[in-house]
């Protein structure tokens, strides 16, 4: 038993546990039982990840390769499939576990309302846990074909969750998301075929050791990039995202924006900066950065023009994704870590940005979901004076918005600060301009909502003393925990702002092996 219960065993447990939860929630009929199992599993998952993190940080940066791997079936890399972990993926796993716990509790309340149909919850929990399994599996996977399977799991589960709503708009968004997702995975699979044909291995680490800058590696990298950009929704391939994220149930929107789009970004970083690094030209890295800059502007403009609150938050995701792509050109000039895996100042900055954005965006979607649940719609223009009736949700929205803008002391501020530092250090001042103006535009769309919700309350109330929002609020009272979950995530962005070193230290672990 001693050999069985080593720390490595925690890695497959992160995949097995959600799968177990998915099976149990499929089989059980009672709603309460499904929810309590889900919350219990989410808690255990968080404990596992915390144990993993403490093990990783105790081992320090000198961790050797053997201990970062778990060979499923005991066959070892080229023949079998290995699970691997390094600082970056450990951080992503921790983020996943934290968000899963909060969103699971929130979903327990979100789907318990009398007007949400029972059969919807029967679908929601299995799909939810299969999605989490896919995300964990992707972050842990060290095998390019296995990554394809996890991509399909994430894609199909996400589509099914978007379609859960059952309205025509949601189904249409889901169908389009599915077609885009299938096209993306096919491009990826074609690249896998090319890589295996040339290098004869499916293992990421072995691939990065033997990859050469030949035509076929180029073609594979181009295909991978196209496929994953489609799934990450980088401008100009973002067309499917706003509707899909905007018409899903609130906890689903939250996890889609916070985690699902980041999984493909994580893969892009893996392939460009690590596995196929020899084929990654400066020109290509620069182009990814420029697309990112375009995304910041286009997403922000669309967010400013959006009429619905959830649509606005979804477009804000398009914009914020742009920042993450600045990783590629910034990594280019840091130079110091070109053959040291995923680490370095640019990677740290972007990893921190991912965490900050995930918390803020999840909080924002949950707040928007609360508003939609209470008021019955989310037309921005028709929310005047809402702050008086839903102070906590609006406060959550404001804090999360502050983080998106990059106001101190939020995590968003630190993440932008880190990005700016790298940009200045490497002498790429033009990115500084883009980062700062992106923050300005974020301020504009966040304040537009807050302005309507907070400031115009006096005028409106004076002219229409009997506000119809008031009536609705008495009809649809939210369970207290729903706004609290959102608030917790918003507070988390502030806490992270004060504890940036924790995250930055983690990313460096195991990077230089």
């Amino acid at each position, binding site marked *: 038993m001693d050999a069985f219960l080593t720390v490595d065993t925690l890695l497959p447990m992160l995949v097995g546990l959600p799968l177990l939860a998915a099976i149990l929630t499929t089989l059980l009929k009672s709603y309460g039982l499904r929810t309590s199992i889900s919350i219990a599993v989410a808690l255990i998952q968080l404990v596992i990840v915390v144990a993993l993190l403490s093990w990783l940080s105790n081992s320090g940066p000198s961790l050797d390769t053997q201990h970062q791997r778990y060979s499923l079936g005991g066959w070892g890399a080229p023949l079998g499939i290995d699970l691997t972990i390094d600082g970056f993926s450990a951080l992503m796993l921790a983020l996943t576990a934290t968000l899963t716990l909060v969103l699971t509790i929130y979903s327990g309340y979100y789907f318990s309302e009398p007007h949400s149909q029972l059969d919807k919850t029967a679908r929601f929990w299995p799909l939810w846990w299969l999605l989490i399994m896919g995300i964990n599996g992707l972050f842990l996977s060290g095998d390019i*074909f296995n990554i394809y*399977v996890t991509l*399909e799991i994430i894609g*199909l589960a996400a*589509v*099914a969750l978007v*379609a859960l709503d059952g*309205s*025509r*708009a949601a*189904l*249409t968004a*889901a*169908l389009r998301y*599915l*077609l885009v997702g*299938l*096209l993306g995975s*096919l491009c990826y*699979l*074609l690249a*896998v*075929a*090319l890589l*295996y*044909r040339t290098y004869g291995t*499916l293992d990421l680490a072995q691939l990065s050791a033997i990859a050469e800058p030949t035509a076929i590696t180029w073609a594979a990298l181009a295909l991978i990039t196209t496929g994953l950009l489609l799934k990450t929704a980088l401008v100009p391939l973002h067309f499917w995202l706003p509707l899909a994220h905007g018409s899903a149930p609130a906890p689903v929107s939250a996890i889609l924006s916070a985690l699902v789009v980041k999984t493909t970004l994580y893969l892009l970083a893996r392939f460009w900066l690590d596995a196929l690094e020899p084929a990654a030209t400066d020109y290509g890295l620069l182009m990814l950065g420029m697309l990112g800059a375009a995304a910041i502007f286009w997403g922000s403009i669309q967010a400013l023009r959006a*009429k*619905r609150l959830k649509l606005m938050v979804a477009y804000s995701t398009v914009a914020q994704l742009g920042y993450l792509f600045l990783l590629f050109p910034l990594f280019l000039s840091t130079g110091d870590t070109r053959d040291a895996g995923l680490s370095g100042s640019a990677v740290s900055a972007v990893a921190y940005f991912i965490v900050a954005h995930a918390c803020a965006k999840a909080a924002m979607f949950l707040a928007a979901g609360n508003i939609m649940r209470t008021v019955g719609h989310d037309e921005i223009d028709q929310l005047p004076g809402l702050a008086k009736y839903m102070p906590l949700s609006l406060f959550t929205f404001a804090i999360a918005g502050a983080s998106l803008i990059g106001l101190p002391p939020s995590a968003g501020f630190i993440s932008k600060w880190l990005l700016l530092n790298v940009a200045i250090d490497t002498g790429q001042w033009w990115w500084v301009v883009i980062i700062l103006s992106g923050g300005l535009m974020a301020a504009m769309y966040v304040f537009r909502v807050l302005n309507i919700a907070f400031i115009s309350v006096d005028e409106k109330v004076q002219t229409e003393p009997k506000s119809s929002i008031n009536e609705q609020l008495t009809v649809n009272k939210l369970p207290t925990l729903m706004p609290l979950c959102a608030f917790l995530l918003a507070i988390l962005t502030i806490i992270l702002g004060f504890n940036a070193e924790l995250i930055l230290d983690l990313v460096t672990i195991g990077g230089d092996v």
Partner: protein
Amino acid sequence: MTQELLYNIASIGLFGIGLYGLIVAPHIVRKILAINIMSMGVFMLLVASASNVNGTPDPVLHAMVLTGIVVAIAGTAMALFLAGKIHTLGQASDKDDH
């Protein structure tokens, strides 16, 4: 001209035909057919590379294609299901969504 090259060309051809059909065809079922043709192309590339090894073909590639075929039918079923649901909801709910 070897057998492998022949099937390589065919596989890329299928991928291209499928991609063109996916972009151009307006009908949803045709888009789904096009995606399936694309996946056939990818599978053919995998199987053609497998057969190159003299003697026994590469079982890892065959296992990958088998996995791919099952994943493909899962995606196809999901797409057809969503399309059918949208169709049956019909015009009635058009007024509801903005």
